[in-house]
């Protein structure tokens, strides 16, 4: 039966040749005479077998044998030319030998290592800054100037559901001078909105929004009028603003303070280990991200902060309720397996290795599927 040339194994073996471990035989190295005699197939059979064993196990001697054989396989015509003039042969070192002998390689390698290191470091810094920047941008969003060119009315309306009007006013009062000046700059535009104009505007809105109830238009009207009525904000006394602040206990991080208080007031309901836990650093940094955090979320965040985590196979696992949960797990349905069963053994070896390393009950996501292994 004629066997076919195995291209896959050929490629794998060639790669192994370039990167395989080196080995030296236990027996003494052979001399040049033995190498030459072996290369010329000039040894008796038993001696040949003996030295074959050595060459098979000793990389150094085998390399010398290989080189000698390559030298020997040179065409014989070149020997005839030697009497006349020795031609200058170009060195035929393999490309990887040429590589390591290049005198400029050190400089080039060093420069490239520095460049790549710099690029990676820059990317890492950028990622960190973008995290903090998104937090800063969320905080500054709350301070957008009403009526300014970039003021988002819709967002302001949704935020109004969670903010009391006085809080809004107080925040506006504590805006930066730039914001205050922007507010003042819009005075002229706002005062130009007379009740007549505002009614026309409300009608225009109603035309655009046929399903809007009259109350909505009122809201619009109110909003427009708010500009008028709130314009004199700057003229309100600082004392009244301060009084408002004290009343509602609002600071520049007012929302944060409210949340922290709600956490502390619910500590008795939390687990005992959380009694004196300070607010999570994450919560402090992202006070206004998404919907208002509920108490349970806040508690769970603290639990995560304190939970033991483990890493395996590039995945991070956190301990929760007596099981290890992959951070990529998002409460999707899981396939359940028990260790040692036939079905478990059919799973990917990479998955099984991770599960074995973590131990216990493990819930993980592997190739977009969730598994629970017990």
């Amino acid at each position, binding site marked *: 039966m004629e066997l076919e040339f195995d291209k896959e194994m050929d490629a794998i073996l060639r790669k192994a040749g370039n990167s395989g471990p080196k080995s030296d035989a236990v027996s003494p190295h052979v001399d040049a005479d033995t190498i030459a005699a072996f290369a010329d*197939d000039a040894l008796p059979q038993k001696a040949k077998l003996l030295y074959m064993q050595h060459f098979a196990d000793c990389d150094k001697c085998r390399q010398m044998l290989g080189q000698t054989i390559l030298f020997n396989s040179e065409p014989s015509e070149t020997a005839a030319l030697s009497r006349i003039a020795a031609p200058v042969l170009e060195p035929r070192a393999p490309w990887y030998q040429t590589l390591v002998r290049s005198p400029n390689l050190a400089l080039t390698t060093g420069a490239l290592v520095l460049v790549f290191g710099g690029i990676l470091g820059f990317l890492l810094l950028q990622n960190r800054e973008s995290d903090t920047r998104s937090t800063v941008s969320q905080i500054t969003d709350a301070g957008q100037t009403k009526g300014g060119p970039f003021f988002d009315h819709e967002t302001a309306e949704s935020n109004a559901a969670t903010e009391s009007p006085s809080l809004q006013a107080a925040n506006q009062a504590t805006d930066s001078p730039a914001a205050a000046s922007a507010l003042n700059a819009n005075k002229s535009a706002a005062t130009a909105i007379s009740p007549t104009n505002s009614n026309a505007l409300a009608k225009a809105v109603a035309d655009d929004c046929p399903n809007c109830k009259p109350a909505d238009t009122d809201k619009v009207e109110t909003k427009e009028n708010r500009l008028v009525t709130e314009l004199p904000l700057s003229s309100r006394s600082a004392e009244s603003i301060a009084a408002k602040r004290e009343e509602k206990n609002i600071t520049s991080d007012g929302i944060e303070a409210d949340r922290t208080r709600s956490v502390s007031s619910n500590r008795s309901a939390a687990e005992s280990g959380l009694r004196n836990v300070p607010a999570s650093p994450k919560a402090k940094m992202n006070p206004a991200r998404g919907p208002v955090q509920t108490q349970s979320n806040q508690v769970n965040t603290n639990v995560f902060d304190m939970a033991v985590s483990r890493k395996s196979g590039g995945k991070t696992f956190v301990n929760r309720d007596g099981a290890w949960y992959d951070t990529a797990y998002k409460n999707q349905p899981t396939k359940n397996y028990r260790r040692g069963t036939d079905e478990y053994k059919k799973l990917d070896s990479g998955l099984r290795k991770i599960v074995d390393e973590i131990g216990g009950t493990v819930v993980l996501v592997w190739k977009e599927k969730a598994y629970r292994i017990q």
Partner: protein
Amino acid sequence: MSLIAEKHKNTVAEAIEHLISRAENTRSLTGSDIAGRVEKTIVKYLLGPDPDATNQDIRTFVEEIRSDDLCLIIACERGDEQAWDDLVTNFDFNVKSAARKISSNNDDADDLASSIWAELYGLRTDAEGNKKSKLAYYSGRGSLAGWLRAVVSQLAIDQYRKQAKLVQIEEDRQFEIVAHDAAETKDNRFGTTPENPEELFTESRTSADVSAALTTAIAELDPEDRLILKLYYFDELRLKDLAAIFGYHEATASRKLTRLQTEIRKRVEKGLRERHGWTESEVKRHLSETATSLGVNLETMFAILLIAACVQEVWI
């Protein structure tokens, strides 16, 4: 004192006399001048591995010794100037040719060739003041040209290893650092960010397991098969060269290699399943992926570096 057992002495003596008579130019040597060398060779290559060798085996063995080359070398050892002239004239090309193949430039090649001749001439002396020369190790079994090439190869490797130990060659250190980083942390991928940690983990495990299974499979082969495999894949010998040293036809060498590939595959697959816990589908899939893996690997990376170095040299 003779190294040959009594029962073989007569046979050896006759064979040596016949060897001298075969030589075209004995260089004034007699049987007794070369007897010591021939007896050592018989013990080393025949009676040592095979104590039960017969007288006929001894005759055949001595018959295959290259008499002219042996006489030339022994005459050189004895200080025969004409013999030295003949040696250098006829074989300097072989030495320089081999030296140029090993060295990176002509200067290094000439230095290496000079070192070879110095070693052969025996510029070093032993405790008794006798010259220590590599000529004393030539047995005459292999060709003199082949022996000289083997000496060049041996000396070059010894010199390179000494230099590598004494001098921290910065290029090699950089190579090792980068190769180590690439192999240990990024699995021969340099400058890429894995998108899927599962894939990265699987790839690194795959490579390690295949490498381990391959090493075990190769170690389990017969010595001849193992040597053929290593000479072909690790030392990049051609089938023709393999056939020449093992004494068979090139087609036979090709069939042997194909058989070895099949054998290795079976052993590797078995090892991956039994020792590393792979499933059947994983074995088939990952072996195929390992063979055809793409991406920026270390060889490609250094090819790029080589091009950059060449460009730099051109600019400078």
